[in-house]
């Protein structure tokens, strides 16, 4: 729909369009330029979405004061004059499409209407309150940058751009959400990211048809390859350094306004087991931690099931002394090992969930009360055995080592599945459960990439950055699974082992 020439028609239209919402501000004024008759103007915006200071400094002051002091005759029409000579501080665009103006106002821009013109200027003076940049809550590191994304999208883009001063870095902004019209940005490096991957991301995003996108989680669930799986096939992160690393690997990032979590695609099980810190510390330390992480994740995954299997089905596997001690500690317990494990594991999940919901200091207290006091009370009351408490404690501690929060969800849910399978068939059930999970992981893909890459299909070069990370000098190629257009990330001229030492020696 086109705008009308008369300003009061346009004002009326926008008031109706926004249903006379109380936060809609229509500020009318008169422009008085020497040599030209007085002309009516109006600003339309939503209170709270704009910066009042910017409106005063960049729009009202120039129009009402600077323009009136203009001495020379004006050749062009008044709108062009305002655009080119008066409103020079603010970013603006011109349109005669009423829908575009409506969208711009909803996005926090100001619409400038002038009587006698069927076009409007939309001026970017957004200035809503947002959280300042803080350190990451879910992906903390000791060594490495601390900043993390915030809810507002523009500071997030700035955090990426500041790290990646590459003209090939592209941000494509689109609006998704029938009613929300939320900003979604596709980020990629043009000469690295595979073109088909970018096209596929674009295609899937275009198919999203929701009222409003409140978090990137909405997008993640709507564009992933396998929406029914407990495992996520799109990585989420609140760390800008992680996103930049992903972009340089040839992956595509998706940022959503109002969400501090960016999405990275494609992803694999392997990439989600990596912490950004692995690349910041020296490689022997990184490998030491990685090995512990992989082993601990497996321990956390199977320990409760193994406990059930050994206690209920195969006690002959436990060394005699230990078996006697376990039997003594379990004497008089009313529940079979499966129920015992289930009670404790569910209690652990309860404590974890309660700890997140409760305010910080109370959350910690709940952890201590739940973990120590209730645990000990349960043992004394004869509900669970002391060894079960050890098993749960091991599971909990080892479970926190998984660096990606979303992946740990999948692993935690699968752990319950394994416990049920084991309760039916002992170690055979545990093996079968693991095989079912493996089979499921083998069927998963992330934008066409195998979730089990680089182990299956085997890619020897990508194995350099999997369970073990090779020194940076050896990581000359980008990961193969992204099918990056430019596969090289380090030139072949980088110093080889001992070369730096030789140079120092010569000096």
């Amino acid at each position: 729909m086109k705008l009308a020439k008369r300003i009061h028609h346009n004002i009326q239209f926008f008031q109706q369009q926004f249903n006379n919402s109380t936060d809609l501000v229509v500020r009318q004024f008169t422009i008085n330029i020497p040599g030209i008759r007085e002309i009516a103007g109006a600003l339309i915006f939503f209170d709270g979405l704009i910066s009042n200071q910017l409106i005063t400094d960049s729009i009202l002051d120039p129009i009402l004061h600077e323009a009136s002091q203009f001495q020379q005759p004006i050749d062009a029409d008044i709108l062009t004059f305002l655009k080119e000579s008066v409103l020079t501080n603010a970013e603006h665009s011109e349109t005669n499409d009423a829908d575009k103006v409506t969208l711009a106002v909803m996005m926090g821009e100001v619409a400038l209407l002038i009587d006698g013109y069927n076009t409007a200027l939309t001026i970017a003076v957004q200035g809503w309150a947002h959280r300042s940049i803080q350190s990451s809550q879910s992906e903390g590191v000791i060594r490495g940058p601390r900043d993390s994304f915030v809810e507002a999208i523009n500071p997030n883009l700035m955090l990426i751009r500041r790290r990646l001063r590459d003209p090939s870095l592209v941000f494509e902004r689109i609006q998704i959400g029938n009613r929300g019209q939320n900003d979604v940005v596709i980020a990629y490096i043009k000469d690295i990211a595979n073109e088909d991957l970018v096209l596929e991301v674009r295609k899937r995003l275009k198919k999203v048809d929701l009222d409003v996108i409140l978090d990137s989680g909405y997008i993640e669930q709507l564009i992933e390859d396998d929406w029914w799986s407990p495992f996520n096939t799109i990585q989420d992160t609140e760390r800008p350094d992680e996103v930049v690393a992903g972009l340089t690997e040839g992956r595509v990032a998706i940022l959503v306004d109002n969400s501090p979590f960016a999405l990275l695609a494609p992803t694999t099980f392997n990439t989600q087991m990596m912490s950004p810190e692995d690349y910041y510390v020296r490689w022997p330390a990184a490998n030491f931690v990685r090995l512990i992480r992989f082993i601990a994740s497996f321990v956390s995954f199977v320990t409760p099931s193994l406990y059930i299997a050994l206690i209920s089905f195969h006690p002959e596997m436990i060394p005699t002394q230990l078996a006697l001690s376990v039997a003594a500690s379990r004497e008089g317990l009313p529940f079979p090992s499966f129920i015992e494990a289930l009670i404790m594991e569910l209690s652990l999940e309860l404590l974890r969930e309660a700890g997140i919901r409760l305010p910080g200091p109370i959350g910690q207290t709940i952890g201590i009360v739940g973990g120590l006091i209730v645990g000990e009370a349960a043992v004394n009351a004869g509900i669970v055995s002391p060894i079960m408490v050890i098993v749960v404690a091991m599971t909990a501690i080892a479970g926190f080592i998984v660096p990606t929060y979303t992946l740990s969800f999948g692993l935690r849910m699968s752990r319950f599945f394994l416990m049920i399978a084991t309760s039916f068939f002992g170690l055979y059930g545990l093996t079968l459960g693991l095989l079912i999970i493996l089979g499921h992981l083998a069927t998963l893909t992330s934008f066409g990439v195998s979730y089990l890459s680089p182990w299956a299909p085997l890619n020897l070069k990508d194995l350099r950055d999997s369970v073990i990370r090779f020194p940076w000098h050896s990581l000359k190629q980008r990961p193969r699974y992204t099918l990056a257009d430019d596969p090289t990330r380090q030139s072949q001229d980088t110093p080889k082992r001992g070369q730096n030492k030789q140079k120092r020696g010569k000096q």
Partner: protein
Amino acid sequence: MILGIGTIGLPSVLARTAGPDGIVAFWMAVAITLAGTILVILLVQRFPNQGLADYSNYLLGSILGFVFNLVFGLFMLTVVSGVTRGYAEITKFFLLPRTPLEAIIISMLFSASLLARNGLEPIARACQILFYVFFVPVLVTPTFIAIFDIGEFLPLFQADLATIFKSAFHSLYSLLGIEVMLVIGSHAENPKRLMRPAVTAIGIVAGFTFVFIVLAFGSLSVPQTAKLTDPIFEMIKYVPLPFSILERIDIFFNAVWTASTYSTIVIGLYTASHHLAETFKLNSGKGFVFPLVVAVYFMSLLPKNEMEVSIYNNWLVVAWLVLIFVFVPLLLVISLFRKPQDPGGQRRSSKQKQKKANS
């Protein structure tokens, strides 16, 4: 790679039928399997991009071809049911004495069917991961040095040729699997290069199995191995692992073996379902998997006891020999007289024509 279910009991069978010369018999079986592999791959290479159902129809005619395809499908189901039953018997004996055989069979078939329904690529990925797991038992082999005695299976070549042949026949059950290439070989990107990976796969399976036979003979002695039904598990029980927190690690070996059986059943179910889909000109064999699982379940319960399972498996070997050394050569010979079609090539050429027309 399909690591045969029979691997567990093979040392015992070899020791019983040929004594120390069981090792010679085993390599004879490997040679027979390799010959079969070459025949199968030669046939697959003559019909690139075509499944067994396609080219057998073309070579034998629609009626004979249809019958042949049904029989092949039945053969695959028989293999899967034999493997499942054999596995269930041993698992019941070693791990779950109080669990009904039916429960073990159903759980294994159901688990395998979940993956078999998802097509060849996920199966290949899962098998690749399992392939790494199969190396775990190899890691414990150095611990056998303390109880290993090479003199236990020497001297060789004491048994007569008929005995060695008989023993080799029994070994074949552990080496079955190459027949799946008749169906899934059509998915190979480059069929001309199929020979080397197929021979390598047989080599790896043979290598694995040979290590276990030698370890069983050398650790338990040949007469003792002959007395035991599943000597590999018995042998693992004696592995002296220092600082071990678990008393018995044979159960973990059982887990690896379960993984191996699972991969065999998955591939078997996929092959059978895919082949039947091709036979009935359907796009996907996914819908066949669950009905086939039901069929396999009932077939696996046909043998009444372990003895009948053994007879069932012997008949399987006979059927395999007939398939590989009668039907496959027959199809190869007929293909010499009937020029092979290349539907892939036809598809390519029609696409090229279309491209030309468009340009």
